[in-house]
């Protein structure tokens, strides 16, 4: 099991505290700069490993940064605190985005990112709760994180804890029946402490979602299952902050976050082949150059 990087965790705590009195614009600017930093780390990790799921990593980055930067109540130095907020990345193939965000928070030393997928590394291609603090459950097979999140939210209710649970799903992942079973359970129990975010980048592994197996009308589906639905631009940190406010209705909250797969690297954006293609050295240079602007 990796352990916290104390100085980074302290810096993270201080930054979170400083946000409390800040103007929304400043918070957003800060989140944007963190997102840019995380995207570069993702590209470097994939370049080193020569493996990874770059498209979905880049589409989910702003969501993860908003959550860990300004929403979730977590302590990287006490990752199993009973009343922590729970975060589950159900689209576990985007582990690089999660690992770089967790390292930025100080859950483990950033240098570890260099071992992504290397022999015996704790940073497997899919997140492992038994090795990486901040990971709540092992994901990778799609359609697993959401039911576990429902269980976390139910546990918080039973224990009288104020803990929130947030789960991030891929849109292609929404084709798994287990997700709709979980949606129905959460709707039935009125789990208002639960937020499910769909990274709606409109692409899955082999093609567009709507060509493969159409999801639309996605917002109406969530509503029909008893959820409060918020549709936002998933790259707009300010809009995400609003969408991540607690439930206003006593129902669980579904956030349909419209995103672009490969966001930030123009030659990757909205192109299906970048689901898990590995950039060449030249492409890595170009990507980092573009992300550093």
């Amino acid at each position, binding site marked *: 099991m990796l352990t916290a990087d104390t100085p980074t965790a302290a810096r993270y705590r201080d930054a979170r505290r400083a946000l409390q009195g800040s103007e929304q614009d400043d918070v957003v600017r800060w989140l944007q700069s963190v997102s840019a930093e995380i995207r570069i780390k993702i590209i470097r990790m994939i370049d080193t*490993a020569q*493996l990874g799921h770059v498209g979905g990593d880049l589409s989910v980055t702003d969501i993860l940064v908003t959550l860990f930067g300004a929403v979730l109540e977590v302590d990287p130095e006490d990752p199993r605190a009973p009343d922590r907020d729970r975060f589950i990345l159900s689209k*576990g*193939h985007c582990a690089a985005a999660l690992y770089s965000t967790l390292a930025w928070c100080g859950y483990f030393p950033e240098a570890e990112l260099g071992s992504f*997928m*290397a*022999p*015996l*590394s*704790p*940073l*497997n*291609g*899919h997140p*492992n709760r038994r090795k990486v603090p901040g990971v709540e459950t*092992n*994901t*990778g*097979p*799609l*359609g697993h994180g959401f039911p576990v999140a429902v269980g976390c939210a139910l546990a918080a209710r039973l224990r009288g804890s104020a803990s929130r649970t947030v789960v991030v799903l891929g849109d*292609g*992942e929404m*084709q*798994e*029946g287990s997700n709709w079973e979980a949606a129905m359970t959460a709707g039935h129990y009125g789990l208002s402490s639960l937020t499910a975010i769909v990274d709606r980048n409109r692409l*899955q*592994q*082999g*093609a567009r*979602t709507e060509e*493969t*197996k159409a999801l639309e009308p996605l917002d109406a589906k969530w509503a029909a299952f008893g959820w409060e639905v918020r549709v936002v631009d998933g790259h707009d940190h300010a809009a995400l902050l609003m969408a991540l406010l607690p439930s206003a209705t006593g129902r669980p909250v579904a956030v349909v976050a419209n995103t672009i797969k490969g966001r930030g690297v123009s030659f990757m954006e909205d192109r299906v082949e970048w689901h898990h293609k590995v950039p060449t050295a030249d492409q890595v240079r170009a990507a980092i150059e573009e992300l550093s602007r």
Partner: protein
Amino acid sequence: MTSVSVPVVAPAYDCRQVFAEELIALARADERVVAVCNDSVGSSNLVEFRNEFPDRLINVGIAEQDLVGVGAGLANGGLIPFVSAAGPFLTGRALEQIKADCAYSGHKVILCGQSPGMAYGELGPTHHSVEDLSWLRAIADLPVLVPTDRAQTRAAIRWAYAADGPCYLRIPRFRVPDTIPADALFEPGRAVTLREGSDVTIIAIGTMVSRALQAAEVLESEGVSARVINTPFVDPLDEDTVVRAAVETRGIVTVEEATISGGLGAAVASVVSQRHPVPMRLLGVNGFAPTGDAAYLLNHFGLTADGIHTAVVDVLESVGA
């Protein structure tokens, strides 16, 4: 000066291309043949199939329970569905559909497990299909096939097409050399003896066959005569060939890229212990794999010629040989 002999490295092949070719050949000859996949057109190598038979490729999206259930319905409707998905999700996620909708209902669905064993390497245990042999061998009326190389993959697909009921077959991805003679039998309950031997028997499947043959060569140079048997049907197993090996040699080593709790080793042990007990060693995957690529993980679990050699020496020592 000592002469250094350069080992001949046999070319190795991924069998996904063979899978695509055979499937297309069958589809050209028989319009009942359809392919069913789960957002896995690329990883199942079905692009050419889709180009030629766009209507006969059904992509249910990322939904494996649906995938196998739909396959059963297609079979019920008179078609011959080749249901193809990454092994772990096909067998793990849809296990009950495989049991109830395919095997128990007697629907002829051909379940094709792609990237089996630890072929997905660094993607980790969620993506490793090493429990498949244990899970599926436990299901009645469902042959379990582990082809080794290109010839055996072709034979397995043709056998499955002509069979009366459903079956599961692994489509090899980890590159291995062609090792099975072209004229080898391919029948349920029939093993292939790849090498005669009188001291000890190695029973191997899939990626482990070429490694078993290498181990047998080293053993021969040390004066140990190792028989090498391949059982492409893990279920139904060739029990008589196993019993003959138990009677005629002094110990048996099984080797598979799978957990040993219920796969080949367990199947052989069950026969040997009931019909002619001899010491055995079961080689396979123990526990969840650490991070590593497929070749690294095979080494990690001792699934190498060296590992097999060590197990053979150990089993022979146990009988005082």
